[in-house]
């Protein structure tokens, strides 16, 4: 590496962590930054039940893969001391509501491979589907609806958020340990039951009143895949987003291509796939 490039790299490594963190916080800060548009009449008939999460300090692990030098590592813990309050849907978007978006030709048909009975959340939806629904709902209500980021989801999920850390010391000389630990954990997370979607509210509420977290429906987030490389001392060496995939949250964190409606395991994709793909939205 030439001295010039090396110098640039050093500057990069100092500047980016601040930007990265600022970016993450900006997403959170955005929530109350928009001017509210008055709701139109139609809102009442489709306005979903909301829970407002009051500001509190919390921690989360950002999305994407993290490397310490050459070794895989747990995503670092980010502390958020004073987030804005957050308006989030109490329930996952219901199948009946999603069907109205389909009827309006603004959403593509959901394609659930496991069908639940009753007033169930919509499943068999991709990230793209969720985004289309958010646009449709925003147009119908005059509010700005969108998917939560991983940070927001963790903020709202509280005690129901799964810690994605494996707690292993990064070791490039032993990549297998991480694969086995991750496999082991995902294997034991499931309850082994056949997990079709259940009616809204079946899995109770968390301490903030948000329902059905960590049930059989994983929820799309606005957070992209990507990779962040840190130096052994924790400086940012590189970061690259990969927004063809987005993360889902649920019993465990998973990433999925934006167009996938149904996760599937098998082959060399070792690990446990989400049972069903759904979503809930936040309102700015």
């Amino acid at each position, binding site marked *: 590496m030439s001295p010039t490039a090396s110098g640039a790299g050093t500057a990069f490594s100092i500047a980016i962590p601040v930007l990265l963190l600022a970016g993450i916080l900006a997403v959170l800060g955005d929530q109350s930054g928009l001017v509210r548009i008055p709701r139109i009449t139609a809102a009442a008939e489709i306005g979903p039940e909301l829970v407002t999460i009051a500001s509190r300090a919390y921690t989360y692990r950002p999305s994407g*893969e993290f*490397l310490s*030098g*050459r*070794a895989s590592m747990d995503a670092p813990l980010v502390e958020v001391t004073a987030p804005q309050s957050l308006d989030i849907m109490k329930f996952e978007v219901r199948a009946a509501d999603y069907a109205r978006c389909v009827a309006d030709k603004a959403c593509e048909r959901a394609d659930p*491979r*496991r*069908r639940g009975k009753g007033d169930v959340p919509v499943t068999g939806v991709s990230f793209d589907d969720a985004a289309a629904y958010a646009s449709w709902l925003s147009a119908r209500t005059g509010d700005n609806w969108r998917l939560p980021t991983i940070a927001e989801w963790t903020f709202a999920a509280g005690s129901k958020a799964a810690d994605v850390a494996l707690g292993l010391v990064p070791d*490039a*000389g*032993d*990549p*297998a*340990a991480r*694969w*086995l630990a991750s*496999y*082991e954990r*995902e*294997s*034991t997370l*499931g309850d*082994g039951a*056949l*997990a*079709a979607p259940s009616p809204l509210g079946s899995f109770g509420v968390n301490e903030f009143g948000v329902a059905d977290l960590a049930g059989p429906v994983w929820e799309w987030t606005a957070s992209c895949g990507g*990779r962040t*490389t840190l130096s052994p001392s924790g400086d940012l060496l*590189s970061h*690259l987003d990969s927004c063809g995939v987005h993360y889902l949250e649920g019993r465990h964190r998973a990433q999925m291509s934006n167009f996938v409606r149904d996760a*599937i*395991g*098998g*082959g*060399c*994709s*070792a690990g*446990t796939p989400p*049972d069903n793909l759904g979503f809930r939205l936040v309102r700015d």
Partner: protein
Amino acid sequence: MDGNQDINVSRRTLLAGAAFVGVLGGALASLSAHAEESAPAQGPAPDLSTLPREKITLVSPPFVHEHEQIATGGPKIKEVTLTIQEKQLVLDDYGTTIQAMTYEGTNPGPMFVVHEGDYVELTLINPATNSMQHNIDFHASTGALGGGALTLINPGEQVKLRFKATRAGVFVYHCAPGGAMIPWHVVSGMNGAMLVLPRGGLTDAEGNKLTYDRVYYVGEQDFYIPRDQNGDFKVYDAPGDDYDDMVQVMRTLTPTHVVFNGAVGALTGENALKAKVGERVLILHSQANRDTRPHLIGGHGDYVWPNGKFANTPQLNLETWHVAGGSAAAALYTFLQPGLYAYVNHNLIEAVELGATAHFKVEGTWNDDLMNQVQAPTPIS
């Protein structure tokens, strides 16, 4: 098929195997009907009274009961009991079910091990709670349709069959109750495999002994589950109710499920297979109905008997091996690297979309000489 109208008369008519076979009037059926008269007139009856007897206690796949790799002493009579169970099995995470037919309640049926020259004395039990005739055809045996003609029993009956294990290898066994019943019983789960080891154990081309630290039995099964008008898999209440619909799917030759050990995910997650670096693992792989091609992702077959017969010298260092439908293969591999391995049917559509995947969790120390990530993923410079 002109038998269809008869089949549709009632499920009971269908299940009364002899009557049904009579309708078809095939060669198998007539052999089956006359087997009792013709079979015993074989060479001199051996005096087996002096041979030691040994009762085999079966375990469920993917495990294999404890056994000697190298036989001590002369031939024995190995006693095995297989109880037929008609039962509903769940095939996947979506809760798809089949009214399965099984030996001992599992798909595949249990693996049992004898040595070349041993006599297998099988007791086959068809409990009265079952609704159909069943039998067993051992590919390892000689004569009487693999014993099928001597073992056809009704619910409430049992039968005892002795056959000599004359050829060393891993062999399929399956139900073959005649005519259209044969493929239907087999793809409803009624098959397994047995292992006939050479008395001196496995050897390489030079005759050097090949032993194993672990043995796993992977039974691959193609299922043909009918769908309703919505495209959802149909659920049937009783054995036999699915027959008409399933035959239609079977004739497409396009399985809805291709799985290892009876269900999607039966050998993954908490049920993943285990091994340690340095262990020699023998993988026995049967497919009673359809060709397949096992592959260990990230590993190899050090010594492979693709056709599963040990009088042939093993093939070396295979990446993928072929298992002809209606046979079983044996592959010996020493794990050299820790981590997670997927063992798949390397038609990857069948592996991933239809279910034919197992996982090995292998513990040990990483070998940097064999593999090393020289540069971690990094933005393109």
